[in-house]
């Protein structure tokens, strides 16, 4: 009989009660596959890849973007041909540490320019079908089968993204630190602990609720401990930074969650893009830099891989409103993980656009396949050759 979601939730709660409190006390450099963490940060709206990783040697770039092109002298050099947007300066230390990887031209065949549909493609990893589960949810199912726990968390207050929908595992949403902040009353905790461990032979839902309540109070206590941990990392004041800080604290505080999903919105820059896009990238870079520093301080930098992607890039040519419309492929950022440094994949050739769009040179599913197998240590399920992470 297949495991039911209910059993898994119950088993997961049992397991998470037994989970070690101090994973970070273990040696860091060579994490076991079972300790590795994936953070997926979605740039919702479709990030302008050409103004994120700028191909400044290509004349076509300046031709296509008469008002939006970024001057070569202002860019942060990535290699001879590419520079990062000026607002991404906060990521330079991460790059110098060899922990920022740019993968050029990531997309999929027959790109769809609908936000909804393209997100569905990225989340479901099934460009032709109508997926009902997501790639993270399907991994969470398999992690739960193997080791229980709370394998996936949605660090957002919106709807659960399709990416996190599995057949069996229910990925909880934990939008902020306060969502595990416990209201206390004198005398309550003592009686509560007694009532949750009363030996009356309860089974079924009552036993489940008691285990769930114990695990939740335990999680709240662990979060409190994690929050109490002093940190040198100086996070900027943004919702994204607060969510990344929460993830860093969960990871370094011994939570068993392996998959995190969060979003940064506002990238649908159809008009007057320059200032808005720069502000978004600065928010992104500063939050990610603080996150990497925090993980390093907690000794966890070797076991967290962060994937930054949007549902599509934007058109190569700017539109008539000093903005950009929905496009196709775009670079993906990888932070941490095995680490490589330099850019990877084949950079787009702006003289060989397809329907005015940057065609993909790396299928996003090849990245997923590498993450699934090489990073998370799971059996390969995607029918595509993995794109080596290093």
């Amino acid at each position: 009989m297949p495991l039911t979601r209910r059993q898994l939730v119950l088993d997961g709660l049992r397991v998470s009660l037994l989970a070690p409190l101090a994973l970070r006390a273990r040696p860091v450099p060579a994490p076991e596959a079972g300790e590795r963490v994936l953070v997926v940060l979605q740039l919702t709206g479709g990030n302008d890849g050409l103004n994120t990783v700028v191909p400044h040697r290509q004349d076509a770039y300046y031709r296509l973007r008469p008002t939006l092109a970024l001057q070569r002298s202002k860019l942060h050099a990535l290699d001879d041909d590419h520079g990062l947007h000026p607002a991404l300066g906060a990521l330079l230390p991460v790059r110098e540490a060899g922990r920022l990887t740019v993968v050029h031209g990531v997309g999929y065949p027959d790109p769809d320019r609908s936000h909804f549909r393209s997100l569905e493609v990225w989340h479901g990893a099934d460009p032709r079908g109508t997926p009902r589960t997501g790639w993270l949810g399907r991994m969470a199912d398999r992690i739960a089968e193997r080791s229980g726990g709370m394998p996936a968390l949605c660090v957002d207050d919106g709807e659960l993204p399709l990416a996190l929908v599995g057949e069996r595992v229910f990925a909880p949403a934990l939008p902020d630190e306060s969502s595990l902040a416990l209201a206390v009353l004198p005398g309550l905790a003592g009686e509560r602990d007694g009532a949750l461990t009363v030996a009356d032979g309860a089974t079924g839902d009552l036993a489940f609720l008691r285990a769930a309540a114990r695990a939740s109070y335990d999680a709240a206590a662990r979060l409190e401990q994690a929050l109490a941990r002093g940190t040198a990392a100086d996070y900027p004041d943004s919702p994204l930074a607060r969510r990344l800080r929460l993830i860093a604290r969960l990871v370094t505080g011994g939570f068993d969650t392996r998959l995190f999903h969060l979003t940064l919105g506002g990238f649908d820059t159809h008009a007057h893009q320059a200032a808005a896009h720069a502000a978004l990238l600065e928010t992104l870079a500063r939050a990610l830099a603080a996150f990497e520093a925090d993980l390093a301080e907690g000794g966890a930098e070797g076991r967290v891989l962060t994937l930054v992607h949007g549902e599509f890039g934007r058109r190569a040519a700017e539109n008539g409103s000093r903005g950009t419309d929905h496009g196709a492929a775009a670079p993906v950022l990888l932070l941490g993980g095995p680490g490589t440094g330099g850019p990877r994949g084949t950079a787009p050739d702006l003289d060989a656009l397809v329907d005015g769009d940057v065609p993909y040179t790396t299928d996003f599913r090849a990245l997923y396949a590498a993450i699934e197998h090489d990073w998370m240590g799971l059996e390969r399920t995607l029918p595509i050759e993995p794109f080596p992470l290093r």
Partner: protein
Amino acid sequence: MSATLRAWRPALGAWDRPAAAHLLRRAGFGASPEELEQALGAGLDATLERLFEDRTPPELDGSIQALLAAESLELLQAWWMARIVAGGAPLRERMTLVWHDLFATSHEKVQDVRLMHGQNELLRRAGLGDFRLLLHGIARDPAMLVWLDGRSNRKGHPNENFAREVLELFALGPGHYDERDVQEAARAFSGWGTEGRSFVHAPEHHDDGPKTILGHQGRFDGVAALDLILAHPACARHVARVLLEAFVAPMPTEEELEGLAGTLLASDWDVGRTLRVLLRSELFFAPRARRARIAAPVECLAAASRALGARVPPRTLARRASAMGQALFRPPSVKGWEGGRAWIHAGHWIARHNALVELARQAAPSRNGFEVLRDVLPEEPPALRAAVERLAREPSSDPAAIAFVLTAPEFHLY
């Protein structure tokens, strides 16, 4: 007499405080202390009749136009929460929520509070009547036509979204139809759309060619397709399952499904008449049905605040329900809320705990732990009673004692 027949005859067990509280929880959203006393005195039949009444305070309907003008989903959520907590029409609000979970439509995509309110009123108006009318109504409901893309389902460019879900989720369930039925039903529904906020049938977009749906052949339109679906034997069982899971217990037995489907058909699809049989049956009051499922957030909050008489703004309650995983008008998908144990995970349990501690703080001056235990857990589990007694020995311990009762897992079994 067979076990099956016995299950449907009127309950003969004691009409005591736990039995009355069970009926008021399941058929409504719990009771105030006064309502519970009244029910105990009045007996099962009178209490059941009371549950069917509609005495919703008129100001709740009076406020709706101004509220919709604000185009705020949060205000609409608060409006429904206020109706639920007011308790004027317990069973009607209960069924509105049951149907919202079945015909799950989310504002997330519809993005129009007037359409969401319109659908909610349809569920309320038709929810205790003829299920066939409800299904026909929901198929033409403008929010549904947006939600499941019915309005872009046109001749030559079929959109199967609604056709698939009506077969899979709303009326039959997997295994009773195939992909061909989905495709052909989609063609039958083509041409149904919206104009402004109203339903419109556009004959030029309707595919009137011959179709085969569930083994029948003809030039079916949407009305005919729905009638074919309703005529399928799995449909009455599907509705019976929804009612049994909401009112009795998860995973109903074959006998229970057959029995209640038979009752539904014998009553000519009348949901109210079917519930009159179900809610006074031995099955409903059987030990297997008591505390047989985990309370949904709205149930948990409404039952607690009604028992405490706490005057919490409905907007706050609606917001708390969202934090606990049940944002009204925003079910996570067309499948509705997963329910059961999926309601509970670390973040959600802590949200429950915090909401109930806050309710306890607000109610404490006028209530104590013993009263609340008797009202919300009339079974008075000995371990909980002993803990309340210990807490009562401490000075000014009422908030902690009330909070203890409300955060005890026993209370979260509905």
